[in-house]
């Protein structure tokens, strides 16, 4: 099953794993971040405890505001003992995670397949 929300495509793997593919190449505007937040939060609530994989394969640029959004998403998920994994992050974007040391708090996988391992 696949459906499109603003700025992302949502796929279900099995009955409980959600894969959210971010569709924008650049995520930097407040409106984009608000739209993503408005899509993610109900999704997490409706599927609690959510098992969410966020796929960054289309993303070539983001700002620290997106990092803030990811932290809010992670807090929401961990409140209900769900699981969050990030995957397919381009090297330049991964560098931002390393500089900010967010690579230490997020579970980051090179491929979607690796991210799904152990979740199913």
């Amino acid at each position, binding site marked *: 099953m696949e459906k499109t929300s603003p700025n992302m495509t949502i796929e279900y793997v099995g009955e409980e794993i959600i894969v959210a593919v971010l569709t924008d190449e650049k995520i930097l505007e407040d409106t984009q971040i608000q739209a993503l937040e408005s899509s993610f939060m109900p999704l997490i609530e409706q599927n609690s405890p959510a098992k969410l994989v966020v796929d960054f394969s289309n993303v070539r640029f983001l700002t620290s505001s997106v*990092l803030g959004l990811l932290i809010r998403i992670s807090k929401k998920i961990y409140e209900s003992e769900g699981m969050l994994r990030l995957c397919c992050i381009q090297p330049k974007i991964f560098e931002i995670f390393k500089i900010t040391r967010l690579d230490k*708090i997020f579970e980051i996988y090179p491929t979607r397949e690796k991210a799904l391992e152990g979740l199913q």
Partner: protein
Amino acid sequence: MTSNAENSARQWEIASSTQAADRLCEELLETARRNGFEEEDLFAIHLALEEAFVNAVQHGNQCDPEKTVSVCCTVTPEKFDITITDQGAGFKPDQLPDPRCPENLCKCSGRGVLLIRAYMDQVEYNAKGNRVRMVKFNQSAGKPHSGSAGMAS
């Protein structure tokens, strides 16, 4: 938005809005591209500009329509040199909590200045903390490129 050519330096006075900042950001990146900056440097400049404009427009001027952001930029094939000044109260960049510390890692904000310092070669704030000067040297300077020198286009 107004601009005045002054040799190779240009100045702008933009409204305290993300839209005005985005338009200027695109123009500045295009100028850097024309001057021979390549993708890695453009990525760094772009990120630093986005973070600095957010700081100026949202944190400095609080999006106050009565306030403006002043920008002075010089771009040559060797370097991208920009000064951004807001009309806010300023801040002490050296007193910001380090977002990399374990106790701050899960905070939702506070990483902009860290990223600016990481991606630009020189970063200086004035004493008040409402003006930042950022410099990026062109890593590919001296290599053949199709760019033209100077800001004027």
